[in-house]
């Protein structure tokens, strides 16, 4: 008997599954189809302004920097200033995200490279799929627009988030994702990112910047404000 067959036989035997599996199968199909929601924390359930305020508080609580901008056109200048203030070179890497590509980077003197991250990249810029207010979490999806390596290889990760994409809770982020990818389908990678990388494995103290970015800078574009 194959390992697979034997494991399934053991599971069914242990669960004392009888011949009639129809009610069990129905139970599984129902749950997978309807994906019932459980307990949703009240704290993320405010209006758009409350969600933005909560997102900001929660992200800052876990050591992310958050800057609010009134329009997308301010993004290149905001990044140029940020890099200058931190003494970082005026170069960055991003994917082919159309929202970022439409910005006028030339005026800022920033050197922008496209594609997946290279180990030598110090700064990468991504466009988030969503933000989750309840814990200040960014949701990023893989693909040519925003390659996953941008999220982990650089020292500094800058993430652009539209205020309109901030949802209250994880469940709302999944709903948003299903609208784009379809029910039961996912991009290769979905990253929930909450603050910069950290570790408590050395000397029992929490230190920022373990393997991933030491700095997580979030630019929230709030065009409705």
């Amino acid at each position, binding site marked *: 008997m194959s390992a697979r067959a034997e*494991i399934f036989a053991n599971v069914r035997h242990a669960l004392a599954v009888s011949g009639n599996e129809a009610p069990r199968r129905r139970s599984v199909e129902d749950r997978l189809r309807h994906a019932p929601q459980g307990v949703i924390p009240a704290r993320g359930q405010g209006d758009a302004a409350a969600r933005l305020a909560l997102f900001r508080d929660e992200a800052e609580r876990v050591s992310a920097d958050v800057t609010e901008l009134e329009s997308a056109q301010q993004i290149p200048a905001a990044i140029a200033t940020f890099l200058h203030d931190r003494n970082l070179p005026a170069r960055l890497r991003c994917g082919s995200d159309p929202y970022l590509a439409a910005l006028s980077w030339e005026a800022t003197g920033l050197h922008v490279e496209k594609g997946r991250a290279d180990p030598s990249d110090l700064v990468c810029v991504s466009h988030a799929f969503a933000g989750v207010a309840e814990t200040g979490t960014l949701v990023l999806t893989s693909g040519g627009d925003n390659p996953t390596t941008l999220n*982990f290889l650089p020292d500094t990760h800058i993430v652009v988030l539209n205020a309109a994409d901030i949802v209250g809770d994880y469940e709302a982020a999944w709903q948003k994702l299903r609208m784009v990818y379809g029910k039961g389908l996912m991009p290769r990678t979905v990253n929930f990112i909450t603050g910069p990388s950290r570790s408590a494995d050395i*000397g029992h103290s929490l230190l920022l910047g373990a393997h991933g970015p030491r700095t997580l800078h979030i630019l929230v574009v709030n065009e409705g404000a």
Partner: protein
Amino acid sequence: MTASPTSAQFVLNAHQAFEDEQLQKALHLTREGFVANRAAAAARLPEFEALRDSARDIKAHTLGLLDLYLEAYEKKVIEAGGTVHWARTGEEANSIIIEICKRHGAKTVTKGKSMVAEETGLNDALAAQGISPVETDLGEYLIQLRHEMPSHIIAPAVHLTRDQIEADFRRNHADLPPERDLTEPTALLAEARGVLREKFLAADVGITGANFLVAETGTSIIVTNEGNGDLTQILPPVHIVLTSIEKVVPTLEDVSQILRVLARSATGQDISVYTTFSTGPRRPGDPDGPEEYHVVLLDNGRSSMLGTDFADMLRCIRCGACLNHCPVYQAVGGHAYGWVYPGPMGAVLTPSLIGIDKSAPLPNASTFCGACESVCPVRIPLPKLMRHWRERQTERGLAPQAQRWGLGLWGFFARRPDLYRLATRIAMPLLAWLGRSEGRFSRLPLANGWTATRDFPAPQGDTFQAQWRKRTKTAAAHGDGE
């Protein structure tokens, strides 16, 4: 690095742990942090207790339909272009992984933290085939340098002090300048980051575990703070997920419920820094990610826990809260438990996985204070399950001779109430008289295990039953019937 279990000599291990000054120092530094952080995180979320119920119910629902959810999960992985492998034992899982590595001519593999890989002894199996495994979680890297097992399921190197880590780095990173300053923990962190970055870029295969599998989408999930698991799985051309069959949950909604209790129970964070959902290999047009995606699903005794007293243990989400709150774990650390899983969850799980004959002392390594159950995010009745193991030990004659003899003697009297009352009526006043000067005994025959570390209080004279009768009579005389 998995050695053969030493769980059977827990008592000896525990004594050595008490003598180990570095270990006691490290345990002392950790003790309050975990407990206070969890309490603060739970207090900050009014829905926390309701979410614990929800998490428990989701896991219980899934386990009752495990065969069907595994089928659904497997189907979705295949649709996404991934491959699912099934392993009855740790050896089978290791062989599957070695075969994949060899097919790709792998020389080095990077590894994210995986307790299942500790369980199968994957590192030794890879090394025996000439493939170098590199642990990339900082804690796992530290213990790999020392050829030790993890002492905690989420903080594997929690038993090490900063001084020990510096010494290990100086010994192992011999190509770095010996005069470098490693006083600050940040310097140690930066050094590890630099050394491991090279390993990430050179790896031929990346191996991670999985905290959860989602049947709805065929997704595997890892939860980390460092980002090492992500670098492990997105840089090499092959990603292998090694995990076990009970990790599956139905939907993204379901896993969201459980994520809300996982990090809060573990480290006191609201959510870990990186929660990563992986579905199949790189897609057309993706500039990064692995070209092959394999999932190895291990049983290793889990299927036979279903439908038994120990099925509740399969709900465990490996947060470590039961370890952090256990007075025994706090006193002796994780290595004393002698195998991969320490603390209360280990005391229940280890006998299921390696046999109670090889781990007999573990269900007794408990004060039965109940702290573990009170903090378990999926409400596993750990003390009850330890009691079940004790019953089985007694049934199978594995309990120590003196304990069985003592229980037998007590049982003889307990089943004969008149004799019991007579015996206690004689013994109690006698003990009271013998201990009258101090009110306690500093030595007692047959009980030196107790009196070696604390006094035994002398009885006050009357037996409990005699006092109870007297009280009932007095109450009846006063007519209040209470």
